[in-house]
């Protein structure tokens, strides 16, 4: 009789690092079938909330753990990496030859240019994009920039990795992504100023001036989420079928070897 699979649920943005970590896990536990499943982090939390059973869950925002999963589904969750928001593009994107950290919004708002983001109700990269736009309005002193960028954004994908795929395939010309995802896919990127890229704990108070209203866990419920530095976290759910093996994987991800994998994937282990 075949064994029940060891199930890993992770944010789409973590596809490559989790894939590489799971390969090491399979070497450690060769008799245990492993299933990897990815979605936007809020969608991941919703799957657990609605009864899904997983052994390890790795999400792109600690706030998702705090608001959806602790304490009913997860006891402890461990911050293991950070990142920054960037504007990703490729050399065929219109205006790619002149885009900089100062004029990116003008390039994106040029006639005919197509840019995209992920869905803020499903994916932290989506609500972080909206926060970046709010902070940009203040940082660059451009009243109305947030609304203009939001209104003109015609492509919205369920999770950031889908958005990245759309950029690779040329369906969008610019995408708001994590730097690590852009690097993994060999995309070009414009680094944004630290005051808007959600990278630095030193600017946590400033980031908190941005906020986005999201759908809550229950139908009709709305929650306000404020900006914060990007932090990825991992946990062993309380109902994991393989808690011992799951703890091994979490220790691996947060240990020296796992940190090297994360760094190779463009994340900042912490």
């Amino acid at each position, binding site marked *: 009789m075949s064994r029940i699979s060891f199930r890993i649920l992770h944010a789409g943005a973590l596809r490559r690092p989790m894939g590489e970590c799971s390969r090491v896990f399979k070497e450690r536990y060769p008799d245990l079938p492993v299933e990897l499943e990815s979605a936007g982090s809020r969608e991941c939390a919703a799957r657990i909330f609605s009864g899904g059973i997983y052994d390890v869950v790795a999400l792109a925002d600690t706030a998702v*753990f*705090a608001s959806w999963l602790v304490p009913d589904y997860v006891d*402890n969750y*461990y911050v293991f990496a950070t990142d920054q928001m960037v504007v990703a593009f490729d050399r065929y994107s219109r205006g790619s030859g002149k885009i900089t950290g100062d004029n990116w919004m003008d390039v994106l708002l040029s006639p005919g240019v197509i840019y995209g983001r992920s869905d803020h109700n499903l994916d932290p990269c989506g609500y972080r994009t909206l926060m970046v736009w709010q902070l940009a309005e203040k940082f660059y002193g451009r009243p109305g920039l947030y609304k203009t960028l939001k209104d003109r954004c015609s492509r919205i994908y369920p999770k950031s990795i889908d958005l990245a795929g759309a950029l690779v395939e040329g369906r969008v010309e610019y995408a708001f992504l994590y730097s690590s995802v852009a690097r993994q896919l060999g995309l070009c990127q414009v680094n944004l100023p630290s005051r808007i890229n959600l990278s*630095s*704990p030193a600017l946590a108070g400033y980031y908190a001036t941005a906020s986005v209203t999201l759908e809550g866990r229950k139908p009709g419920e709305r929650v306000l989420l404020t900006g914060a530095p990007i932090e990825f976290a991992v946990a062993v759910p309380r109902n994991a079928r393989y808690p011992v093996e799951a703890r091994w994987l979490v220790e691996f991800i947060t240990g020296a070897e796992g940190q090297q994998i994360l760094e190779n994937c463009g994340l900042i282990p912490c």
Partner: protein
Amino acid sequence: MCKCSCSWNFTADRLLLPVLLFLLRLKPAHGYELIQKLAQLDLLEGEVDPATVYRNLRRMEQEALVVSSWEATGTGPARRKYTLTSRGEELLDECMLAVRRQKEKLEKFIRLYENECRPDLQGGESCLPQG
């Protein structure tokens, strides 16, 4: 250069290591908190780069200058908390000797400049070696 086996040498942009050692000597802390304190202290050139801080903390742990453990706060996330080791304390003391030596050299250079190039600022006699 320090007399110990470390490779630390003072320049303004390399204060990060001794400042991290100093902050951790005051109390154990996690990287998130250290980045906030580094920004408040404003001792380093330019902005505090989180990636550089986290990379330094990992290297410091590999060199046994700090040890880390997970600390959870209530329902908040668990973060890696760093504690200074005795080896880290020794290195901080050695770094500070090098900082003081560099401070003396910089002050001497400023005096030379003011005496030789801007006597209006000091009005003193030349302190250059004769001959």
